[in-house]
């Protein structure tokens, strides 16, 4: 009995020694923590963020690891938890990641409410994190410190930009239907005055609940009023409803925008050529040749996941890690040095150059994309467009 126990102890000891040796030999991994809305109301959107994370990790590790100042490379490892789409869980998880798991770096969770809930936590622990999938005018109120937002799809900039794009394309009348959720309503509140300023008549302005199941009565009214533009401030679930019923009723308006949804891979699979001509919110396109890394990201994503990355959320998620990667290469893992590097650096991303002013990216312009021949093309503004706007030719 005793010998068995002694043997077992020896074996355990040997195994422990081996694993320590093994770890030292392979260089300690850099651990990056995040929470993700894997279940709950945001779950359907989370893969558009977590897939780019996985792709980035795979690419970094294939290249020998994450580079630190001085050229040393260490492999990357993720520590992640499900926050069940609940911002309170997000806060708890990040506190755990920082204090108990003692991760080296942080990546962002999914969604605006999570980002907003997290800002004070990062401030308290002085732990820098580059955000990604948050978009709201509320972000502008976050005090600069340890969080940054690379998006330029913020409603107070999108409203005037869209009005300008519409005016530039000869639009004189518009019908608006908007989801009652905050992002759509923020956008609506900034679009209405911008349209007025450009002299674009609003022939209909209606809001609908997120759980809407039928839009026939609104869309029949729009069809009968025949405005130049239909601005549907959709979220992904109602974006499918809108396009299906707009097609059924044969809306003739040449300018059709559906706020969030059309850039999702499944959308184009469901609607095929009927999706051509639909405009959506995004500031990235794989077709942009000057952003050489963009096309490479797109191809690698399609090869790994068998579907296209979302032009908004997937691009932003990947960008946030590119920014982190470049900042770490310059400043290492020390939190203060890293904060300084992110706050003052200029980064080369799949969406071109990014630089932060306070919490916001002040380089990437607010843009709009259009589906043309099944591809996502940037059509606004002039400075980054990959194709010209084309009036929608039927459904």
């Amino acid at each position, binding site marked *: 009995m005793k010998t068995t126990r002694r043997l077992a102890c020896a074996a355990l000891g040997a195994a422990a020694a081996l694993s320590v040796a093994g770890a030292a030999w392979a260089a300690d991994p850099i651990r990056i923590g995040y929470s993700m809305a*894997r*279940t*709950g*109301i945001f*779950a*359907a959107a*989370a*893969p*558009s963020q977590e*897939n780019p994370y996985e792709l980035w990790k795979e690419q970094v590790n294939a290249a020998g690891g994450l580079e630190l100042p001085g050229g040393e490379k260490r492999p990357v490892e993720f520590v992640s938890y499900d926050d069940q789409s609940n911002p309170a869980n997000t806060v708890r998880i990040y506190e755990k990641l920082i204090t108990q798991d003692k991760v080296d770096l942080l990546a962002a969770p999914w969604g605006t409410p999570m980002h907003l809930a997290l800002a004070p936590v990062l401030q308290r622990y002085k732990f820098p994190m580059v955000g990604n999938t948050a978009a709201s005018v509320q972000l502008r109120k976050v005090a600069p410190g340890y969080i940054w937002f690379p998006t330029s799809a913020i409603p107070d900039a999108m409203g005037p930009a869209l009005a300008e794009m519409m005016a530039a394309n000869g639009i004189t009348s518009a019908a608006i*239907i908007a989801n*009652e959720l905050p992002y759509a309503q923020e956008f609506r509140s900034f679009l209405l005055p911008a349209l007025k300023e450009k002299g674009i008549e609003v022939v209909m302005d*209606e*809001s*609908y*609940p997120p*759980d*809407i*199941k*039928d*839009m*026939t*009565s*609104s869309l*029949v*009214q729009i069809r*009968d009023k025949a405005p130049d533009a239909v601005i549907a401030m959709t979220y*992904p*679930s109602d974006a*499918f*409803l809108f396009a*299906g*019923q707009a*097609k*059924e*009723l*044969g809306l003739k308006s040449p300018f059709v925008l559906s706020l969030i949804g059309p850039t*999702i*891979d*499944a*959308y184009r*699979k*469901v*609607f*095929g050529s*009927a999706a051509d001509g639909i405009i959506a919110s995004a500031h990235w396109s794989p077709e942009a040749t000057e952003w050489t890394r963009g096309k490479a990201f797109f191809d690698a994503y399609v090869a790994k996941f068998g*579907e296209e990355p979302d032009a908004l959320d997937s691009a932003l998620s990947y960008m946030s890690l590119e920014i982190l990667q470049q900042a770490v290469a310059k400043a290492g893992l020390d939190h203060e040095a890293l904060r300084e590097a992110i706050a003052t650096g200029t980064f080369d991303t799949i969406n071109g150059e990014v630089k932060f002013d306070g919490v916001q990216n002040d380089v990437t312009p607010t843009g709009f994309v259009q589906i043309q021949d099944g591809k996502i093309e940037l059509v606004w503004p002039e400075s980054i467009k990959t194709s010209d706007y084309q009036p929608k030719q039927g*459904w």
Partner: protein
Amino acid sequence: MDTLLSGQLLFAALVSGSLYALIALGLNLVYGTLRLLNIAHGDLVMIGAYTAFWLFTLLSIPPVVSFFVAAALCALLGWAVYEGMFRRLLANPGLAKRVEANSLILFYGISVILQNLTALAFTSSSRGYQYLDTVITWQGVSMTGNRLLSLGVAGGICIAALLFLRFHLFGWELRAVIQRREAAQIVGVNLNRVQPIIICAGFAIAGIAGVLVSMTEQITPFMGFPFTIIAFVVIIIGGLGNIGAGVLAGLSLGLIETYGVALTSPGYRSILIYGLFVAVLLIRPEGIFTKAVRS
């Protein structure tokens, strides 16, 4: 006003209403005969939707064939749930008394497991496919092929189910079990035969509804819950366990939703539906279409 009288709005109302009726029919059958509150009902719709999606995408099998596969798959699941869990619970009178309340929690667990298993297997990315999306115009009413198919299938199954209940001997047995469980046994209805058949049928109907939904909506592991809610609203408005009234309530809800929104604005959609729901619970808790309360 023109819009209100147009066939277009009627078509939209019938498409929604028939789908609500179909989804509620499955739930109501299971509740009526087994007194099980199937909170996972919407997740069966989700399984039906994924079945149609994968068959179409991987094997180019159209939804008209997937109906049978989805129905079989969900029926099998129903059989497994019955054999594995409820047969023994229902056979024991002591446990059977509590099974109604317990089933809610049990099915909640099943729902969470189904959602997460699906998310693990297929990721939670949205899916979708393009099928029968040609628009047909008849008498000034535009109808997308897949919505027309949805109306036909959902309406057809509801009518067939009602006729079956009215005219087939098994339908009589079923109604007997729903109305007077103990008395039905005394007059010779074999509960051990009726119950598994009904749970399979109820689950299969949800699977078929999933195939219909998959043609027009995006498919995700978490798409089912709203269908569970709407199905419960429908069967409570109609009267729990009252099959015919449930179908009528589903159809009415589609009409109320579509015409109510047309008369007011889309912002009132939820207020209308849940307002009606609360009103029914307050004024006629036995359901609008249920005849005088039985002693």
